[in-house]
């Protein structure tokens, strides 16, 4: 196979790879090769292609190359596929002669003008470049699809060939291609269109604004969905426990990372069930509280005229309003207003006897717990919290247990891109625990997490990777 064919095969499904036939002065043809996400096409034309096209190639060889006239351009003698691929992936432009005896490479001298600021941007092309810069491999592929009848938009699906299961890619691209919509305005809407369980309160794809999070997902064998016009990308498939992981967990001490995850898990439990537990104990099952503690609880409610559920709903409604207020106002005003309003209202509520002091503790603990959670989960937890409060108000602790059972049943039923959502707990996969509940040293984490059912489970062993 000719070098150019092999290169084309290597960069299959890489829409940013440009391989253009050019006519040289001698009348012969050559190939201009570069990755447009790493190097500006205008620079290639002005600083690389134009000087070279003026060159008489019949007199040029690797040993007799007029370097003085062509700054920043150097020859590669007897070029092979690997050296050319590496040069392209490192951000060089290549001109390969038709006989494939000589290749000329050029690299922009200055810093790339598309400085990433370490965050995705709105433009799909730039986002692909951000990924390409961090994963310099032709195994990083992109499938670009078009969706939307009246407002056409582009969706890129990035994946690491050899690491991802081919079935996953086909599943996601199939779902996107089958979409019949007028247009998609954001990744949130996109997720709702392609998710497995459209009615679920839980997120099924993970949002990522930072390239490091996206890269970690790609290396783990997952897919990255990038919508043109939205700086938020989506990682698929996702498990419930993925939402408790942050990129910083990997950077810090293993124990600290694991501790933070346990804290976030505890926060979900508190965020959903804590106010409902208060209602259950106060309204129905006060006998489970030891007598000496029950007296304190009763004392705190002695002036409260409302039943526990009304008391909880009042305070929770105020907390939710404060949260909305903080998110609508500019950051510095929102925080201060939220704190002042929270403190004043809380104090006034207790002093006037509208709510008990103990409930303020419960509500604040719930609020803090829900703020600790990752953004994807916050709205789910808020909704489920109210559902649990209502069920508990009607049926006491049984309502709470039934709600918890339904949530548990839903979590074990759910799938993300056909993969179990509650893995590695159910179905039980002990190897997955290493990355989810405990963090062993990196040297002990040689295997990819089993959740995405990666094709090659051992890290650093991707088919055909350089």
């Amino acid at each position, binding site marked *: 196979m000719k070098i150019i064919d092999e290169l084309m095969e290597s960069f299959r499904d890489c829409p940013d790879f440009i391989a253009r036939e050019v006519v040289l002065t001698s009348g012969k043809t050559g190939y201009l090769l570069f990755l447009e996400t790493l190097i500006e096409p205008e620079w290639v034309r002005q600083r690389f292609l134009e000087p070279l096209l003026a060159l008489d190639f019949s007199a040029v060889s690797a040993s007799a190359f007029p370097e003085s006239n062509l700054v920043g351009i150097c020859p590669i003698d007897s070029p092979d596929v690997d050296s050319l691929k590496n040069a392209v992936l490192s951000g060089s432009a290549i001109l390969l002669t038709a006989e494939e005896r000589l290749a000329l490479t050029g690299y922009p001298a200055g810093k790339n003008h598309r400085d990433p600021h370490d965050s995705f941007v709105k433009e799909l092309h730039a986002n692909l470049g951000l990924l390409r810069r961090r994963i310099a491999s032709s195994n990083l592929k992109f499938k670009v699809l078009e969706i939307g009848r009246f407002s056409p938009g582009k969706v890129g699906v990035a994946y690491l060939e050899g690491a991802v299961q081919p079935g996953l890619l086909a599943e996601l691209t199939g779902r996107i291609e089958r979409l019949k919509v007028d247009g998609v305005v954001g990744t949130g809407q996109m997720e709702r269109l392609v998710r497995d369980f459209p009615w679920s309160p839980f997120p099924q794809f993970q949002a990522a604004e930072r390239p490091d999070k996206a890269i970690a997902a790609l290396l783990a064998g997952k897919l990255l969905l990038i919508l043109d016009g939205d700086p938020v990308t989506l990682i698929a498939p996702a498990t419930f426990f993925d939402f408790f992981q942050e990129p910083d967990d990997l950077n810090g001490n293993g124990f600290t990372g694991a501790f933070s995850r346990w804290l976030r898990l505890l926060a979900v439990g508190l965020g959903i069930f804590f106010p409902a537990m208060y209602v259950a104990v106060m309204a129905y099952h006060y006998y489970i*509280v030891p*007598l000496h503690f029950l007296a304190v609880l009763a004392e705190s409610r002695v002036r409260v005229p409302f039943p526990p559920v009304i008391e909880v709903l009042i305070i929770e409604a105020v907390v939710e309003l404060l949260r909305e207020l903080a998110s609508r106002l500019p950051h510095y005003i929102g925080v201060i207003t939220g704190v002042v309003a929270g403190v004043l209202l809380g104090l006034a509520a207790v002093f006037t006897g509208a709510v008990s002091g103990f409930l303020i503790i419960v509500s604040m603990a719930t609020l803090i717990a829900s703020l600790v959670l990752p953004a994807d989960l916050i709205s789910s937890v808020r909704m489920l919290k109210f559902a649990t409060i209502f069920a508990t108000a009607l049926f006491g*602790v049984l309502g709470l247990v039934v709600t918890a059972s339904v949530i548990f049943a*839903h979590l*074990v*039923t759910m799938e993300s891109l*056909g993969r179990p959502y509650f893995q590695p*707990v159910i179905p039980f996969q002990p190897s997955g625990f290493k990355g989810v509940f405990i963090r062993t040293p990196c040297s002990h984490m040689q295997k990819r997490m089993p959740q995405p059912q990666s094709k090659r489970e051992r890290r650093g062993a991707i088919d055909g990777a350089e």
Partner: protein
Amino acid sequence: MTERNKITSRQLGIFILTAQIGFGFLTLPAVLARDTGHDGWLSILAAGIISSLAIIAILLLLRKYAGKSIFEISPRLFGRLPGKAINLFLLLYLSYSMVLSFRVFTEFITLYTLNLTPSLVVALLIITPTAYLLRYGLKPLARFSYFIFLILFFILALVFLVANKIRWTFLMPVGAAGIASLGKSLGTTFIAYIGFELVAFVYPYVEDRENTMKWVLGANFASMAVFTLVFLVTTGLFGENLLKTQLIPLFELARYYRTPFFERTDLLFVLLWFPLVEGVFLTYSFAVYDGLRRIFAIRNRRLFFPLFIAATILFSRIPADLVQTLAAAEVVTIGGIIVVGYLIFCYLFSFVK
């Protein structure tokens, strides 16, 4: 969801473990104390071995007719019409067990948590998780059964916490009950292991059938270990005379342990038991739901599903109260033994056929 009914052998094992531990187990120590005194654990071990042999026979039968459930095997062995008649009987047993287990479940929940709420309202509430899971097939249902491990953890923790209070002399002398008394109690104890017969109904949905024997037998042995442990601990703690007077000794055990911040540990166990009993009810519900669909070739799931749930609630209301329900549950006991006997007979008959 892809292949929503496909499960692994491991999931089947956990499914069976849930069915065994969830129900019959609750009253077992008290019933055994009445029948055999402090030697009940010998009966548990003996019934465990008998049920293991029954499991081996059932699985060998199923292996002979690879990928078929007892609903397909019966007509093959006994002819089309007799086979269909037997299938209807099997379905009747499953439906009866399901409806009765649901009613007992409802009555116990009402008794322990919501005394003043009408049990029909409680029934509507507790069928919700089942209805949700049943819609999605066997796979999520088997996943739900993993909850058993949380219960087992709490049981072990409780046993550990009360271990220093156990008086082993309550279990002496070993064998005082005599062979006749032990033999008489075998039937009662065997019933606690009932649940494994469900293998014959869900076997076609198992993916790795070569591991089924290992996992189902493993589940049976795990049940045996838990039954024995709880019997030994409750007898060692309360003594056989007090044990005889109790309804659910495990909950009494939970009440016995006093925590500094939680007055009623037994309530915690009642609550934890809810998903487990839900799991038992689910296992039978799936067997009935699937059996009805297969035997009567029901295709319209949208209509059939709500009708099935409504019929379950309606039929469960037939017994007037808990006393009548428990009396009706005696039939399940006999039915269970007949069904297991029939499955073993099928295996033996398959050599003749």
